[in-house]
């Protein structure tokens, strides 16, 4: 029996500790141990993006990160995107633009889009489609998702000025 490892990390700004086996993915730890079930398993092999979290500033597929690798890291999940009092503009725009139907891909898209807008506040439609190509959606055909990201980018630019 492989012993569990103790991992200390920061998730959504809070210090978190957990035990996990080496074979547990970060996705499993988030969902099954920490009850942060916003990140979803769609494929478990890095092809759908439903498990996207931000790890040390970059978006990753949490299904392809081991729980033990979270040691000393900073992780943002969908649960950490809204502030205490407000939805993030991305979340608000997804709602207003009806950019979700079944909603299963939505957390992954919002986290990836946040990483995108953090890095590139004024992306073109092509930029958005390129950077979000790793997030699959089967319901929307992507149209309203792209528009929601564009609208959120505009709101964020406005908020800055």
């Amino acid at each position, binding site marked *: 029996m492989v012993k569990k490892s103790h991992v200390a990390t920061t998730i959504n700004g809070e210090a978190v500790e957990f035990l996990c086996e080496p074979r547990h993915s970060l996705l499993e730890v988030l969902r099954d141990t920490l009850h942060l079930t916003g990140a979803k398993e769609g494929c478990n092999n890095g092809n759908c993006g439903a498990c996207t979290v931000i790890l040390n500033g970059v978006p990753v*597929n949490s299904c392809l990160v081991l729980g033990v690798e979270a040691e000393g890291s900073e992780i943002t999940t969908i649960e950490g995107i809204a502030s205490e009092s407000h939805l993030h503009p991305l979340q608000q725009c997804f709602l207003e633009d009806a950019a979700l139907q079944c909603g299963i891909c939505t957390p992954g898209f919002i986290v990836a889009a946040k990483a995108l807008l953090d890095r590139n506040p004024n992306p073109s439609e092509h930029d958005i489609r390129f950077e979000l190509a790793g997030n699959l959606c089967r319901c929307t055909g992507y149209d309203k998702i792209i528009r929601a990201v564009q609208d959120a980018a505009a709101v964020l630019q406005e908020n800055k000025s």
Partner: protein
Amino acid sequence: MKEIEYAAAHSVDEAVDLLAARGDKARVMAGGTDILVQLREGMRDADLIVDVKKIPEMMQFSYDPARGLHLGASVPCYKIYGDAKIAAAYSALADAARIIGGWQIQSRASIGGNLCNSSPAADSIPALIAHDAQCVIAGPSGRRTVAVADFCTAPGRNQLARGELLVSLHFPPVQPREGARYLRFIPRNEMDIAVVGVGAWLRLNDKAETIAAARVALAAVAPKPLAATEVGEWLVGKPATDATFSEAGARARKLAKPISDMRGPAEYRLHLVGVMTTRALAGAAERATSK
């Protein structure tokens, strides 16, 4: 997944010791985007994962125009294309790093890992060959250097012997009027494994009209990534024109030995070798003249 141990090495020596001790029951993990999938699906087997992302030497990269690029084997793709100087100097490398999987994959996956996974369809390897990259390998008996072109030996297999670890890749300094391009054909626009991939590198003469040196390498059309040496040699002295690139494409086709599989029929892949070689060379030439 079956039960597995995990150890993070903090130095190359520590990693080499772990690998030597456990042999083929240990697997190196950099970005994890290949190895974790393979371990889960039973395509590869291990009792121990050796994480090499805490080895400073393997996570660093530095570029000096006089000395070239030193790229740690665990450096994630996004850092490569995210560095404007490196992306400009080693553009085929940046091309490949930009299209391995999606953004989430590029945040983790490393060129070293892509090379060591040794898929014949790997996107980075034709670019590495085109740039004449050299592998620095550490092992129980010390370090050695091997050309990337010689590194892979069979589908999914490479030269690394028991206890050996790819530590870094070295790229020669860039000279004027050099350009490189990696292009692949995939049925969608992203997220696919290459049906055919081509890395092309050219150095033009001082009038930027004639090819002074050339390298072409192919992915997904042979049991391992294919250095199309004869094509590179043939290109020397030829004018940098579409007609030349087209003929080069025809010659590349003669070297390719694609199979038919779920990613495409052999006949079609053979045709694509010609098309993509021509386009990659044209792209390399354009970059060579734009400097």
